[in-house]
C-alpha cells in the first residue's frame, strides 16, 4: 500500500513535512534575530547573503512549498475523514487526555496558513501599505527600516501576535504528535517529549514576538 493512501502513511507524511517546517521556523527565527545586530551588518547583511544565489533561493522556496502543500492537503483530508469517525456525539462530553490544541489542529493550522500568506505579502512581496521602503544606491531594500517601520503599527503587531499564538498552539500538540507518529516514543519518553515540545513551542512564541514587541516598545528605532 502506498504511503499516500494508507492511514499511517498519510500521518507519516504529515509528521515529516511538519518537522521540516519546524526546522525552517528555527532557522528563520535565528536569522530574524540578526535585527538585534549580533551579526556584522545586521539584518540587512543577513538578507543580502540569503538572497545572493537566486537559483538556490528558488529551489528552497519550491521545496518549502511542496512540504507546506503536502501538510495542508493531508491535514484537510484527514480532518474531513475523522469528522465522520463518530457520526453521533455523546450527550455528555468528557475528555481525559485530549487538549484544546489537539482538538483544534485544523483551525490553528488554517490560521497559520492565513498568517503565512499575510507575511509573504508583507515582507517578501512588500505589498502591505504603511512601511518605509528605502533603497541604497545599488537598489537593495533596507530591510531594517522596512521591519522597524512596519512594527510601529499596533495592528500589524496584533496580526503577528495572533499568528504566533496559533503557531504555539499547533506546535504544543504537533511536536509530540509527529514524534509518536514516526514511532520515536515509548511510555518512558512520551511524557518527556510532550513537555519538551511545549517548551520548544513556547520558545518560538517568545522568540518571534520579541522582535515586534521590542520595536513597538521603542527599544529598536529606525
Amino acid at each position, binding site marked *: *500500500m502506498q*504511503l499516500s493512501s*494508507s*492511514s*499511517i*502513511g*498519510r*500521518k*507519516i507524511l504529515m509528521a515529516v513535512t511538519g518537522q521540516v517546517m519546524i526546522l525552517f521556523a528555527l532557522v528563520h527565527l535565528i536569522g530574524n534575530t540578526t535585527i538585534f545586530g549580533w551579526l556584522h551588518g545586521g539584518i540587512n547583511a543577513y538578507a543580502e547573503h540569503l538572497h545572493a544565489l537566486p537559483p538556490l533561493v528558488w529551489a528552497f522556496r519550491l521545496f518549502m512549498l511542496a512540504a507546506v502543500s503536502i501538510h495542508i492537503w493531508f491535514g484537510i483530508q*484527514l480532518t474531513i*475523514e*475523522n469528522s*465522520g*469517525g*463518530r*457520526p*453521533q*456525539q*455523546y*450527550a*455528555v*462530553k*468528557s*475528555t*481525559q*487526555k*485530549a*487538549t484544546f490544541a*489537539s*482538538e483544534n*489542529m485544523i483551525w490553528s493550522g488554517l490560521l497559520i496558513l492565513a498568517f503565512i500568506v499575510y507575511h509573504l505579502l508583507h515582507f517578501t512581496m512588500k505589498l502591505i501599505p504603511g512601511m518605509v521602503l528605502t533603497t541604497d544606491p545599488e537598489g537593495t531594500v533596507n530591510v531594517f527600516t522596512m521591519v522597524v517601520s512596519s512594527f510601529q503599527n499596533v495592528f500589524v503587531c496584533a496580526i503577528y501576535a495572533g499568528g504566533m499564538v496559533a503557531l504555539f498552539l499547533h506546535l504544543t*500538540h504537533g511536536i*509530540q*504528535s509527529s514524534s*509518536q*507518529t*514516526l*514511532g*520515536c*516514543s*515509548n*511510555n518512558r519518553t*512520551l511524557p518527556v517529549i510532550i513537555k519538551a515540545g511545549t517548551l520548544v513551542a513556547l520558545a518560538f512564541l517568545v522568540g518571534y514576538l520579541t522582535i515586534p514587541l521590542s520595536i513597538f516598545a521603542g527599544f529598536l528605532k529606525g
Partner: protein
Amino acid sequence: MSDHKTMTLTLIVWRQKNASDPGKFETYTAKNITDHHSFLEMLDCVNEDLILEGKEPIVFDHDCREGICGMCSQVINGAPHGGQERTTVCQLHMRKFKDGDTIYIEPWRARAFPIVKDLVVDRTALDTIIQAGGYTSCHTGGVADGNAILIPKPVADEAMDAAECVGCGACVAGCPNGAAMLFTGAKVSQLSLLPQGKGEAAARVKAMTAAMTECGFGNCTNHYECQAACPKGINVKFIARMNRDFLKAQFA
C-alpha cells in the same frame, strides 16, 4: 444486606430498537441500589422492574462479569466503562456514585460500530482486523516446543502487556475520530515482538492497518483518549511501535 443504606439514582439511557431506528434517551429510576452492586447488577435491578411493569428491558452486552472478557460496552457520563482507571463496566461498583446522582448511559459511538439495539453495538469490525493478519501461520509445535525458543523476560513481558487487550472497543469509543489504532497497535505488537510472529510482521502490519481503514475506523491524531479509556491500561507506546513496524514494512 438489609442494614446497608440504599440509594436511588436517575438513569438517562439510550434506547434504540434497531440499526435503522433514530433512537432516543429515556429516563428511569434505579431504586434500592447498594454500594455492593456492580453497574451491571444495578441495570439488572432496573430491568427486573421494567419487566414487572410489562416494559421492554434495557438491552446491554455482558458475559463474564469478571472484567476479563471484553463484552461490556457502555459509555457512562461520557466516559467508556465509566472512566474509572483500568475498570470494565462489570467491575465498576455503585460505591463510585452517590444517592440522587443522574447517570447518562450511552452505547459505544463510532462509524465502524453500528448500533444493534439499545446499548449493544456490532463490533465485527474488530474481528475483521484480526482476520486480516492477527495470527501466525507457522507451526508452533506442541507444549514442549513453546519453551524451545528462549525469549528474554522483558520482551515476553512487553508482548504480554500488549496481549492484555480484551478487544472491548473502548479505545474506539473514547477516540474523537473513532480510530482503532490502540486495538490494532496492541494486536500487531503482541505478535511482532515474539519470534513466531516476526516472519510475517511486515505483511501483517500492512494488512491489518488497511483493514482498519476499510472497516470505517478514523485516523489517529494522538489525543491519547484511547489509553485513558482502556480497561486494561494498554499504553499508546504500542501505537508508536506499530507506526515503526509500518515504516519498516515499507522497506521490507
